[in-house]
């Protein structure tokens, strides 16, 4: 059995890659993908702890999380599409109308 530290390490690396992507990338699509990365990092943690403790609740939670992520991507992509229609861009650094 693989030690749990590896799973946590993988999850942490994925999460940090996702977070850095969210904070730094300009394209809205890439930011959405980075959010997926962070969600999946969390899913890996769920599954790993579930297997480690023998409690199946974590597995179920991972499935729920995946379903929610799918819904979130649908909404997010719809926003991006509309943004593109309205402004001809999906660069987040050009979308700052809602400010002071």
């Amino acid at each position, binding site marked *: 059995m693989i030690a749990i530290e590896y799973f946590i390490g993988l999850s942490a690396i994925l999460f940090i890659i996702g*977070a850095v992507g*969210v*904070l*730094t990338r300009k394209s809205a699509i890439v*930011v959405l993908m980075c959010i997926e990365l962070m969600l999946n990092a969390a899913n890996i943690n769920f599954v790993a702890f579930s297997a480690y403790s023998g409690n199946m609740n974590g597995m179920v939670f991972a499935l729920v999380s995946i379903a929610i992520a799918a819904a979130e991507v649908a909404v997010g992509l719809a926003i991006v599409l509309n943004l593109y229609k309205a402004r001809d861009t999906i660069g*987040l*650094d050009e*979308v*700052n*109308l*809602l*400010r*002071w």
Partner: protein
Amino acid sequence: MMYWSELAWLIPIIPLISFVVVGFLGNKAFKRIENGGYFAILMAAVACFLSLMVAFEILTGGYPGGTFIQSMNWMTVPGFTFNMGIYIDTLTALMLIVVSFISTLVVIYSVGYMHEEGEKKRRYYAEISLFICAMLGLVLSSNFLQMFIFWEIVGLCSYLLIGFWNTKPSAASAAKKAFLVTRIGDIMFMLGLFIFFVWFQGNLDFSYIFNNVDAFLGGNDLLTLGTFFIFGGAIGKSAQFPLHDWLPDAMEGPTTVSALIHAATMVKAGVYLVARTYPVMVETPNTMLIIAIIGGITALMAATMALNNPNIKRVLAYSTISQLGYMFLALGTGGYLFFHTQETNAGFMSGMFHLMNHAFFKALLFLSAGAVIHAVHTEDMRLMGGLSKKLKITSLVMLIGCISIAGIPPLSGFWSKDEILAVVFETGAENPLFYVLYIMGILTAFMTAFYMFRLWYMTFAGEPRDHHVYDHAHESPKVMWVPLAILAALAFGSGFALFFGFSEAIQPTMFHPHAETWTQILEIVFTDVLTYLSIIAAVLGIFLAYLMYRKRSINPDVFVATPARRKIYGLLLARYGFTAAYDWIGLKVVYGVAKAVDWFDRKVIDGIVNGFAIVTIKVGNIVRRGQTGFVQSYAALVVAGVSIIVILLFLFGGVI
């Protein structure tokens, strides 16, 4: 057994009905009949009938115990109970007679006097009905708080009726002046009530206070202050020095209003208040002394101002102030003497007696003056003269009034004025100050006789000075001269009440009055040298007026012959500068304080509030720069925040 007194609660209600009905329907339902005037007369007459019945019952001892008390719970606060009720003793009965009877006559007279006012009559009759209601309510009140409420309502009616011709700027400002100046007195009255409230443990009922006054004595400084403030209310309402200056200005109202409110009834409310509080007042001799002094000063000062005024109504107004001063002099002196000797004296009785007599002859004088004004359409006596040929009845009844107020026996004014002066002289044995007051009283009697006959001669005697005015003069209609005749009969004869047990009936029981037969009274009065002194003073005054204004052997211009005399003359016309002083206080002091307060409000209070707003806006302007609109900067903040929370949890939260 049914008593009239049990119906006393109806007395103020009936004029109130008239106020509501005339006030709302006057111009619609009563268009043909004087816009409600006759309805007001009817209601006033019913109230008068009831009042006379109640007064008769109380004065003749028809009600067992002599004092009728009825009260119901109005408001209960933990610890205190306020009642509304009726308290009728002989003093109330006297006031009931005076108020209701003169009110009725004045309303009847108004039908003639206010004939040309058109639709405004509705307002007039409604307001005068409200006044009658409030004044009767005031005298019937069973406690100080209820009295204060009616006290304020009569003040309101006075304001409304002085300003009846409200399109005239002088009338409007006179109304305001009357309201504001009496308000100073009202505030003092209220302070007095607060002190009484504390002193008498939260119960302001007359019956409670009068029955228990002995239990509350000792260490009387606070009580002295309380009675002084109560008298302060009387100063304002009864136009005593130094708050007297509103009353001459109040003559801007219709003459009927001057007669009813500013001569016969409302200004007597102050005297009534002091008389009503007498059982408490006599325990505070210092207040009594102040009352006597203020009364004496007012009597003398107002009399001097009446000496040279050319306006017929103003002269009567000063005369009213002066006579009210006599009443306070009598009350103060009587109480002072009683405190020091604990013996019966005529102070209280003579004050009340003068109140009654004055109400009759002053109402008569005002209404006669009103008949003159109605006939000649001017108030300036310099334009009158010789009117006795045209206004026969008016000149005759006014002559009766003048003789009565001058104090010539056997007319009513003589009896009460003589009693007052006798008591003041008697009190001189206790305190020499009262000799000074006595001399002031005699001087006042002299001046009173002089200016009243000056008024009569200038108006009715001699040759007409202005033929245009003279030719248009006409005798008043019957509806005006009949009330005058009734009042003249009373001005002539009300003094004889002294011989029918007035004295014993009106004295408070603590004085232990003893009955005197009329021969005894006559003997006391006419064996006293002082009596002749006051008669001589009056006769001299009349004689001087005769020489100056009838026979013209002394030219009145002699009083303005030199600059010094002219200065005094002008000083009297300027009312000793009181008007200017009031204006100065109003414009400079009050306005100055108002400006300072305004500055404080604008700069300090508003400054603090506006300062908060400005600081908030400034800070907001800086902080809002944080809202960049970039999604990623928000996300960075979220990450940073969560990171800090996690780090803190690790460091201090004991998570590990």
